[in-house]
């Protein structure tokens, strides 16, 4: 399982999930131009790695960690599209394919520089989809230049993307002063370990464990909190309400 093909799969699943749909096997097969059985096989592998939640006959959803990887690739992809289109003047029809090839080899630092040079574009040029948010704790491009050289970024995504059973560590909180203040007062400060216990349907709030207590947190607020997954750590504790907790370890192919 090469990291490039994993990224392609997660990217494809992302494109369905971002519209609020589960990715169905047949649709994934069509999108990735592979046979449905190999999609099933790959999706099962990704599920074992804790990157997706796969429900037979229903479809696949990214876990928080899968989302973090997908967001990273999709962000590079869409920034590249903007760059190819806006700065290099390449035709809209061609940018997607070009970006697909470049995205896997673009460093995090270069992606951040692209974003900064184009003054934080918000959508990609061909279909107007939003570019996933900047994964750094910064307020403007000036700070970006100071921070982005520090090396590759971790796997970061919004807390609202985590599925029940997943956990990570708060990297930073971004948003209005009042919301940030409240979130930090309630213990969601940098370095705090957060585990998602439950998620209400209809994009309702999530229930999280942080600092020894359980909090209910609306999706909107949860999307202000950026969670980092520790590399090599156990990320997914499967929820088995009636049995012992089964923990799966992921491979070391990330980054």
């Amino acid at each position, binding site marked *: 399982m090469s990291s490039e093909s994993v990224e392609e799969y997660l990217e494809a699943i992302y494109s369905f999930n971002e519209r609020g749909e589960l990715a169905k096997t047949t649709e994934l097969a069509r999108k990735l131009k592979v046979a449905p059985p190999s999609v099933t096989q790959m999706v099962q592998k990704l599920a074992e790695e804790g990157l997706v939640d796969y429900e037979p006959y229903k479809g696949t959803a990214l876990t928080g960690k899968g989302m973090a990887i997908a967001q990273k690739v999709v962000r590079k992809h869409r920034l590249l599209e903007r760059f190819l289109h806006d700065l290099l003047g390449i035709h809209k029809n061609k940018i997607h394919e070009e970006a697909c090839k470049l995205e896997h080899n673009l460093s995090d630092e270069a992606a951040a520089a692209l974003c900064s040079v184009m003054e934080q574009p918000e959508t990609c040029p061909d279909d107007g989809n939003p570019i996933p948010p900047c994964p750094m704790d910064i307020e403007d491009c000036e700070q970006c230049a100071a921070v982005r050289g520090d090396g590759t970024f971790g796997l970061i995504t919004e807390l609202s993307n985590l599925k029940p059973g997943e956990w990570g560590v708060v990297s930073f*909180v971004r948003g209005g002063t009042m*919301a940030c203040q409240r*979130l930090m007062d*309630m213990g969601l*400060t*940098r370095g705090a370990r957060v585990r998602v216990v439950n*998620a209400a349907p209809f994009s309702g709030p999530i229930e999280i464990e942080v600092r020894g*207590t359980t909090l*209910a947190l609306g999706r909107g607020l949860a999307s202000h909190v950026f969670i980092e997954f520790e590399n090599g750590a156990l990320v997914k504790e499967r929820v088995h309400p009636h049995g012992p907790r089964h923990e799966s370890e992921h491979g070391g192919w990330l980054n």
Partner: protein
Amino acid sequence: MGKSVIFNELTGLHQHVGNWPGKTVERAEGTLSFRGYTIDVIDLPGIYSLSTYSIEEMVSREYIAVEQPDALINVVDASVLERNLFFTLQLLELEPRMVVALNQIDMAQSKGISVDSERLSQLLGVPVVPTVAVKGVGLEELMARVVEASTRKMPSPPTIRYGREIEESIERLVDALRGLNTPYPRRWLAIKLLEGDEEIARLVYGLSPPVEEVVNGLREELERIHHHDVPSLIASERYAVANRIASEASSHVEPERTLGDRLDELTSHPVLGYVFMLGVIVAVFYGIFSFGDYVSGLMGEAFSWLRSVYEAQLGTGPVVTFVWDGLIEGVVAGITIALPYIAPFYVVLSVLEDSGYLARIAYLMDSAMHKIGLHGKGFIPVMLGFGCNVPACLGCRIMETERERLICAFVASLIPCAARSIVIMGLVAEYVGFQWAAVLYLLDFVLIFAMGRVAFKAVPGEPVGLIMEMPSYRAPSASVTAKRSWFRLRGFVYEAFPIMVAGNFVIQISSMLGLLDVVQNLLRPVTVLWLGLPAAAGVVLIFGVLRKELTLILLASLMGTSNFALILSPTQMFVFAFVVMVYVPCIATIAVLVKEFDYKKAAIISLAEIALAVVLGGVIYRVLPLLGLL
């Protein structure tokens, strides 16, 4: 929260509930006699921090710094030690004479947490007393420590030390603040300025403008070193200290799965949770309404018997009748609503609150409430509104910010309360058909949805989402429930009764002076021409401001029959019920709105609702026949 329980245990029934001056934050005050001392106890609002997030937080920190109480009791929940210590550390920065009540140690034990109170006391530098407030355990010892603390000359020292760079910035800022006269400790001011607290910034920069430059410089420097903004740095370090103290003073073993855990799983389940909630709500409403109906029936009989006795003794002269109609009837109205409907409502609410279920309801309803511009907690006042709008508007205090409170109160005042339901059921369901009553409710919900969206856009301020602690389930205590319901009921009586009596008096006087006929004629263009109702509806609607359920009885007596089919067409009934449902909240609700917000906001809400009722009522009157529906 164990805080109010401790307060109630300490003061018993000797307490007085009011508001903080100029703020809509409840201030409960009581007295306690203890070993020859008479101690004034003040219940400060339950908060998690001393920032400016909510009005409660600002009231509390101002009180502690300005009033400088002889002693401060910080109630810490032993089962969530770390989060509570985060607040304790902030309190210590205000340098009060403090005692920590380490509460709910039984609850903590059942969660596998045992806390060493002596170690905690050493680490915090203040006395720590283990308590179980609901059972009164440890309160004697607590008060002994409080008396001791109050005689201490020196305040408790702030224990927390931040990282080196932050400490250096604080020191430099403390120097810059020298000579500044504020009630707050300088170190606390320095920390708040670094955190970017707007309230404190206004205060300090107003007194000494050059400080602003120092603060900005220090903040920039810290942000350059750490690559993170200062509020987040300080909060993280504070939590790190809280974490260190909590883990040094307590030990934790994995507990057995309790009944509460299983109940939690069921009640926040994505499907079963809603089924359970629906069951609870239906049971609550059915229970309260059938109980209320029965009891208010009995009371109605009792009062008419009393009236007959009264008239038999004093005759039925105009003065005698006026004394009853003008003065006593207002009290009767209050009693027949407050006792049968409101009292059981408060009891049930307190049980739901105490057991921890209310938080689950808020959790499940969050996404639905977002549709009307509120978050999950807003469902609780809305639910209360179906009983009576008065406790609903009072209940809006559970929302954290002024903005959320106002939107919530506006929405809650549109909820069809018990009185309005009586009109809808007695008129529309009875004479037009049950499905039309359902249509009315549906119309109201659409209206609430639309007006909620409008208010969400129109009210200024940053909208905030749901964030709340999910308490563990526990068995509610009977004495806590009884006391809390009693205090709330008493509050309602103080709040609503005078207005009901006064309002009733004014209208009876106007009726005697013949003013009502004048008003009826003045209203004719609206009632008769636009809404298509009989002219008598004008007077009825005015009386309805007092008590909406009386509109039906009054209409019957003015029209000379209680068979509404003879005097009103189905369309008229529908329009009448709609107008009664939407137009101006009753006078008691208006009074609460004035008290919770101000005259201007109460007037805007009332006028908006009158306009809505009249405009839409006329539209419905014209549209229904056009569609061939009625």
